[in-house]
């Protein structure tokens, strides 16, 4: 029983990486009511760009790599916005969905070509720290990822509810036409949303790279799938929901890995998704207003 609980705890902690990705998905959905399928790939792309700093400064601190990933993530986020949303009619949900799917594959292939598909080591922090809580142990680096998720949530909620930008964002999210009539530049708000989610994606990618200890193009598709599941289960547009759902999905995944084996594990995660879609389509924390 202790082993099972420890496995669930391990999974829950690893779920913090899903939460970070889920937050990005949910933020774009909350503001634009669009799904950005390229988000996880862009996040991993940002993390790869972070490694570029090591080319110029060998032995640079991991924090510098994370900072570079953070900045690159913002830039990639803006480029994704330009390529997949700015010039594409937003009234057609399928058009932006397909453009972001295309962008996911494009980013994936760029990474594969740039790295020849090889896994690259990623600098880690606190990776050798194991905290003991009685019979249980907790990974220090994953606790950091969890802390970063909560911090990101706090910063995003502050931005959304305590700043003029947040007010404009919520206005665009709820009534884009009325917001435009009030003088809010909708395209600018959308672009800023993408830059912010891109910055967040850069952190997410770097945290994932650090917690896995390596980056590989193999990560993009599973993270996209997990990010979407987390977004739906957490409640489309709910930032706290994404965090709770990330931890839940991670725990659920590991629980079924122990109970049913690794090959069946993902079946049960998908069943969980369908259960939510049928019995609680709004997710755990469906926001009333659609904003964050």
């Amino acid at each position, binding site marked *: 029983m202790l082993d099972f609980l420890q496995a669930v705890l391990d*999974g829950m902690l*690893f779920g913090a990486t899903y939460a970070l990705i889920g937050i990005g998905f949910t933020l774009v959905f909350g503001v634009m009511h669009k799904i950005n399928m390229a988000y996880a790939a862009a996040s991993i792309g940002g993390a790869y760009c972070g490694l570029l700093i090591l080319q110029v400064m060998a032995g640079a601190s991991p924090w510098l790599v994370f900072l570079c990933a953070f900045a690159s993530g913002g830039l990639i986020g803006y480029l994704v916005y330009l390529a997949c949303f700015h010039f594409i009619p937003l009234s057609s949900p399928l058009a932006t969905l397909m453009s972001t799917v295309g962008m996911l594959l494009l980013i994936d292939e760029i990474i594969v070509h740039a790295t020849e598909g090889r896994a690259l080591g990623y600098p880690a922090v606190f990776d050798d720290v*194991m905290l003991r809580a009685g019979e249980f142990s907790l990974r220090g680096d994953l606790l950091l990822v969890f802390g970063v998720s909560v911090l990101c949530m706090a910063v995003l909620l502050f931005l959304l509810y305590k700043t003029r930008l947040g007010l404009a964002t919520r206005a665009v999210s709820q009534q884009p036409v009325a917001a435009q009539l009030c003088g809010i530049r909708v395209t600018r708000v959308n672009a800023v949303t993408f830059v912010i989610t891109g910055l967040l994606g850069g952190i997410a990618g770097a945290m994932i790279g650090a917690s896995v200890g*390596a980056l590989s193009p*193999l990560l993009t*598709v*599973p993270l996209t799938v997990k990010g979407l599941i987390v977004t739906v289960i957490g409640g489309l547009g709910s930032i706290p929901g994404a965090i709770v759902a990330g931890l839940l999905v991670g725990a659920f995944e590991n629980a079924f890995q122990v109970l049913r084996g690794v090959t069946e594990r993902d079946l049960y995660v998908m069943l969980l998704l369908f259960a939510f879609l049928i019995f609680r389509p709004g997710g755990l924390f469906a926001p009333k207003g659609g904003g964050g």
Partner: protein
Amino acid sequence: MKTLATAVAAALAAMALGLPSDVTAQERTVKITGFGAKSGVIRSFGINSEAAMLAAAEEINKAGGVKLADGSKAKIAVEFLDDRCNAEEGISVIRRIYGTDAIVAVGPTCSNVAEPLFGILQKKVDDKGDSGLQMPVFTDVAIKGGLAKISEWAFRNVPSEFIMYSSLYYWLKTQYPDAKTVYGGVEEDFAHSRALWYSVMKDRAQANGYTIVGESKWLLNDANFATQVREMKKVNADILSIAAHPFTTCGLLKEMKRQGYKPKVLVGLTSSSTSETLQGCAKDVEGMIIPTSFAPVNKEAKFAADQTAKYKGAADLHSMAAWENMFILKQVMESEKISGDKSQVQADRRKIRDGLAKLKTTQGLLGVSKRTADREADKPYLFVHAKGGEWKVLHNPL
């Protein structure tokens, strides 16, 4: 002036008549088409094979090329196609190659491509009722055991993992006499990894007197190994045999370090004795022992590795098999006296098939390889281990 005009006219006439001359010989080519994964996460395998083939062709061409039946010489032209490590793509690629003037195909990268692809080749030569492709395929990378027996047009120059791991576990017995137990870790959704653990490592370890005390499974794109390492740590076997590719091997090793688990002996998958593993986790992989059919241990092997590097490829057991294949094919083309004539492509393909089937031994970079009756290779091998950020030779059992 009149003499010059006569000489030019004679040369033009000779060309028109197809008579051999130095001028025509320089222009003649025989095409060898390589194919393998050049996109996706195992893109590096295709890149390395292509680089090795190009480098080997350059060496052969520098030495004059291939001697044809009429005594003239032809250069080798190499083309390389991407099958994306996908069975359907692989079949489409071999059909495309069949439609060209390529006289032999070298590839593929993945066993899950090789198996169905060999299935569309003619099973038995001269079987008129079998409309399968009559195209010789000389595999360099796809390593899953026993695939060449699917078709008499399929040949492989890949090491026998069965023999190599048998020898490795035997040697471990002599080096670690106290070690009694083996635990397995396997990438459950990858054909090569599964075949290696379930059909080779497990079987060979037991055959050498070890007790298998358990196995943990994960998937190719998994990133969390906490549960698997706890399982391993709980059993605490003497030898941990990991049948997984570099990304998950590194993930597992990092988790082992976190949980403070270190078995007496670490054994890895053949395809992990590459620079990718070192790039991903040089420190964590330290000590891992892997049998391989290539290491730059002699002048020829070092030369092949250097030449391949010029084409931006890395030398490993897979890419160096592609290098060897080119020289073996040159030898076969000359011994079987292929015409090199584009209108005789099918006849030349048949000669190459027959020539490959006749071979009893071939010269490889580490020494002589024996050819088996079912068109496989019995290659020389050695054991390497990760030390100081490099793969170094640990033991040469031959």
